């Protein structure tokens, strides 16, 4: 299948997509965990605002999310300027920006999955851990976290898959710069915008599917193994 051979530029896009999706998934995980815990367990003023905020990227068209990100996290944006000045963390037109966009787009999916798992945790087990001397942090680490692992894995899978497919917010936020912000999806989009690009789009789509499926199967089998350990026959 000669036509499946990837050009250098395409290889770059593949590598970039993997990097972006992985970083997006991993870096949003702690925030998603926090948000999920707050939503599942917390009782505070503004909880429903937080809930709405988390869902926002899902509710808004990706282009709007991209624009909002551009305005907030761009070089001239309030948060972007702050982060760049104080932490040297620049998002605009960097792959980090693509990762940010994907993380934001996948955030509601991750939070929902984790939250669902947290709500299913038998809190009596956490009580039992506390009577054995574990402080709340330890209870979380040694009891809650292992028990919500299925939700975390599901959330990570969704976030990764979403990151592989995301381009609306990404391309709006950090453009479509080969080697820097052009992910597979953005490349596929480019192909669909010109005459004769269908074959290219199809080829890249297949590559994207193959990669995602591999990641999916891997994660599923890891999750299944973890589940077997937890609730054996």
């Amino acid at each position, binding site marked *: 299948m000669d036509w499946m051979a990837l050009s250098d530029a395409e290889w770059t896009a593949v590598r970039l997509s993997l990097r972006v999706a992985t970083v997006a998934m991993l870096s949003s995980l702690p925030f998603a965990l926090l948000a999920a815990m707050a939503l599942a367990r917390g009782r505070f003023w503004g909880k429903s605002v937080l809930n709405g905020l988390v869902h926002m990227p899902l509710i808004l068209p990706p282009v709007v999310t991209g624009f909002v990100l551009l305005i907030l996290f761009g070089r001239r944006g309030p948060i972007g300027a702050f982060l760049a000045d104080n932490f040297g963390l620049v998002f605009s037109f960097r792959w980090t920006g693509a990762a940010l966009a994907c993380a934001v787009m996948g955030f509601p999916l991750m939070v929902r999955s984790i939250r669902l798992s947290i709500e299913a945790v038998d809190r009596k087990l956490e009580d039992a851990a506390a009577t054995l001397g574990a402080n709340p942090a330890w209870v979380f680490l040694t009891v809650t976290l292992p028990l919500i692992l299925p939700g975390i894995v599901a959330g990570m899978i969704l976030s990764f898959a979403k990151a592989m497919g995301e381009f609306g917010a990404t391309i709006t936020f950090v453009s479509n710069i080969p080697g820097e912000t052009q992910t597979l999806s953005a490349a596929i989009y480019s192909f669909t915008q*010109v*005459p004769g690009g269908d074959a290219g789009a199809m080829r890249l789509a297949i590559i994207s599917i193959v990669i995602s499926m591999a990641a999916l199967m891997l994660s599923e089998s890891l999750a299944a193994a973890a589940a077997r350990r937890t609730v054996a026959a």
Partner: protein
Amino acid sequence: GAPAQGEEKVTIFAAASLKNALDAINANWKEESGKETTASYAASSALAKQIEQGAPADIFISADLAWMDYLAEKKLIKADTRSNLLGNRIVLVSAKTDADPVEIKPGLDLAILLGDGRLAMGAVDSVPAGKYGKAALEKLGIWPTVAEKVAGAESVRAALLLVSRGEAPYGIVYKTDAAADPGVKVVGTFPEDSHPPIIYPIAITTDSKNADADAYLEFVKSPKAAALFETQGFIVLE
């Protein structure tokens, strides 16, 4: 990062529909000058807003005048480098490859041709090709009869696909796109005066510090590039 030295690649922000032509031109430019380029293809709207937010673009090629004007107003392009690079035509395409040609003139009964089908075109209030199409139909007095039948696609490409898949019997698309699709037949070209001129303007951004930008701009306007644009069906202006 922001390109400060001339060693940096020239970065072109161009409307997505220019990808094929610009890819070829950039390859040529590399052959001749030995210099690399970076091209980011996206919707003109996104690109313009990104430039507004400090994107590292040296050259901007828009698919319509509106977004170039938007940047010009904000003094984000060097006014003296702006020019109208390309032109295009809009055509009426049919899903039937053996369809009879029609003359597009005032009074054309497009509604009859459509029957209970839809007229596929770019979204008339957002996609440039859609705007041109609507203007032309209005000018020709056809618009009121077909307004209800228009299916506004997300891009010209999508409109073309609707026709080539047989979802819509007719569509209005760029000549450049129509030419490359064997699934459709161009049955008529809209008179040039029936709509505002279709223009792809080009300019160097105010923020550009790249010494090669001017040279690249020259190259894009050169006859060599013109040939490549024409291969893709564009009309080279000037």
